[in-house]
């Protein structure tokens, strides 16, 4: 491993029952600083639920989630905002404030980190241009198309240049061209040092990029495959195509000691 391969986000032995018909079972995963990981699985596999645990909107029944210096088992309620300001989240259902313009929605995420209005205005043009919504900046979400709303959600998540980006199905409402654009944007952000965990059900889409893919099915990780890195992160190459799950676990045990 290269020396900068520090773990920025990890889940250890996470289990949780949700309703009568579904549970997350012994989930283990680690994401290195600057890594790009796809989380793939069919509808209802538990992708959104797993992400929700990572931004601590829900807590594991057993096991542990670690994001940066935040540990779910040692977390006080009050520090959750600090965690969320360090990460970016693209929600599957967008979660935009309907009574605020596109500009205000994105600005909100920047304001809460204490960014000044001058700074926000300076950065906004670039962010909005990136997702192709500069001309819609004063529109309200209900007047936007599904794809446009999704791109606002994306813009908001990347506005703070987060250390970790959790993207839940960020291209579900986008046409192939826009999907390509957004993926390129995510890769570019990743190249800037942000670790990205992107949940999607579109296995065909993600296969072509050769990134690491974690397969989730019925609440279990069935495969965690690291493929050859392409694009801007080509410099970090891992030849092993076998499941790295076991290796990563032992890896962790070395650096972090036994957990729980």
């Amino acid at each position, binding site marked *: 491993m290269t020396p900068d391969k520090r773990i920025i986000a990890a889940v250890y032995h996470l289990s949780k029952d949700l309703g009568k018909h579904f549970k997350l079972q012994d989930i283990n995963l680690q994401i290195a600083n600057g890594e790009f990981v796809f989380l793939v699985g069919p509808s209802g596999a538990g992708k959104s639920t797993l992400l929700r645990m990572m*931004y601590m*909107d829900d807590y594991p029944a057993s096991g542990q989630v670690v994001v940066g210096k935040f540990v779910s088992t040692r977390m006080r*309620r*009050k520090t*959750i*905002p*600090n*965690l*969320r*300001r360090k990460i970016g*989240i693209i*929600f599957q259902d967008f*979660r*935009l*404030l309907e*009574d605020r313009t596109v500009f205000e929605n994105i600005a*909100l*995420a920047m*304001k*809460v*980190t*204490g*960014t*000044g209005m001058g700074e926000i205005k300076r950065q906004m043009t670039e962010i909005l241009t990136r997702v192709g919504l500069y001309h819609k900046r004063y529109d309200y979400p209900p007047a936007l198309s599904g794809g446009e709303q999704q791109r606002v959600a994306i813009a*908001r998540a990347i506005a703070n240049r987060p250390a970790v980006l959790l993207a839940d199905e960020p291209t579900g409402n986008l046409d192939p061209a826009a999907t390509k654009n957004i993926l390129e944007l995510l890769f570019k952000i990743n190249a800037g040092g942000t670790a990205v965990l992107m949940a999607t059900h579109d296995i065909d889409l993600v296969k072509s990029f050769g990134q690491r893919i974690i397969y989730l099915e019925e609440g279990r990780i069935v495969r965690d495959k690291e493929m050859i890195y392409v694009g801007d992160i080509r410099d970090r190459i891992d030849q092993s195509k076998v499941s790295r799950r076991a290796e990563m676990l032992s890896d962790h045990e070395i650096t972090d000691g036994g957990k729980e």
Partner: protein
Amino acid sequence: MKFNQFRYIIDESVGMLRRRMAANLIAVVIMGLSLLILAAFLLVTLNISGVIEKTSKETRVFIYLEDGTGEEVSREIYSRGMGIEEVEEVVFISRDEALANFRQALGEESDLLDALEGNPLPDAYRLKLKPGYIRSKVMERIAAQAAEWPGVEEVRYGRKWFERGEKLVRGFYIVDLALGLIVFLSVIFVISNTVRLTILNRRRAIDIMKLVGATNAYIQVPFIIEGALQGMVSSLLAGVLLFTLFQVAGRYIPGLVFIRTDAVSGFVVFCAALGALGSFSAMRRHLKL
């Protein structure tokens, strides 16, 4: 960074007030009317109890002297009267004075007195009690005591009227207390529920703000400011309405008293605090921040 945080909390509050203009207006009017009722109630209480108190304060104990009582005995009665702890003042009222007063009191009917042969009224001493001792128990005791003194024919203090008035005041205060409590609780209830409806309405927005990393302060402060402003504006509204009503009523019922200015400003501050507290506690309960 600290300064920015502060500025954005202010921004947020202003933005929220602007966006929620309609909802705020509704809340303010509902609360304003509730407060109007509370304040109107206070005002009525103030005036009625003022009248009753004034009347009962004017109650005096009269000691009527026997016909032909000498100067010495009379002076003795005076000093005995002054000797009673609860008595503030003893005034001599001669029979002539008394007749003149009576004539005046009779008004139109006073020509009845023209038929009198001489003056049938006795000399008297009028005892004024110290404030706080004007109670039927005290008066009864003094009356019984004075009746035993030499030279005293009779002691009177309008027992029936006074007792009735006293009972009325007591009843009034109890009803007052009960009604006041109910109205006060209602106002608190209305305010906290208005805030609660607001928060339920904004639940989705609040959840989203939490998800993008807004601190509790960032979310709460605008609500608390909103609550305080609502309370303040509502109480001002109530005050203005009440004053208008007071002016109208004053044209027909003379001698009405308005609530004192410092009490009004106290009321406004109190309502602002109430609004802020309502917001805060509603958030504690419903947001689990």
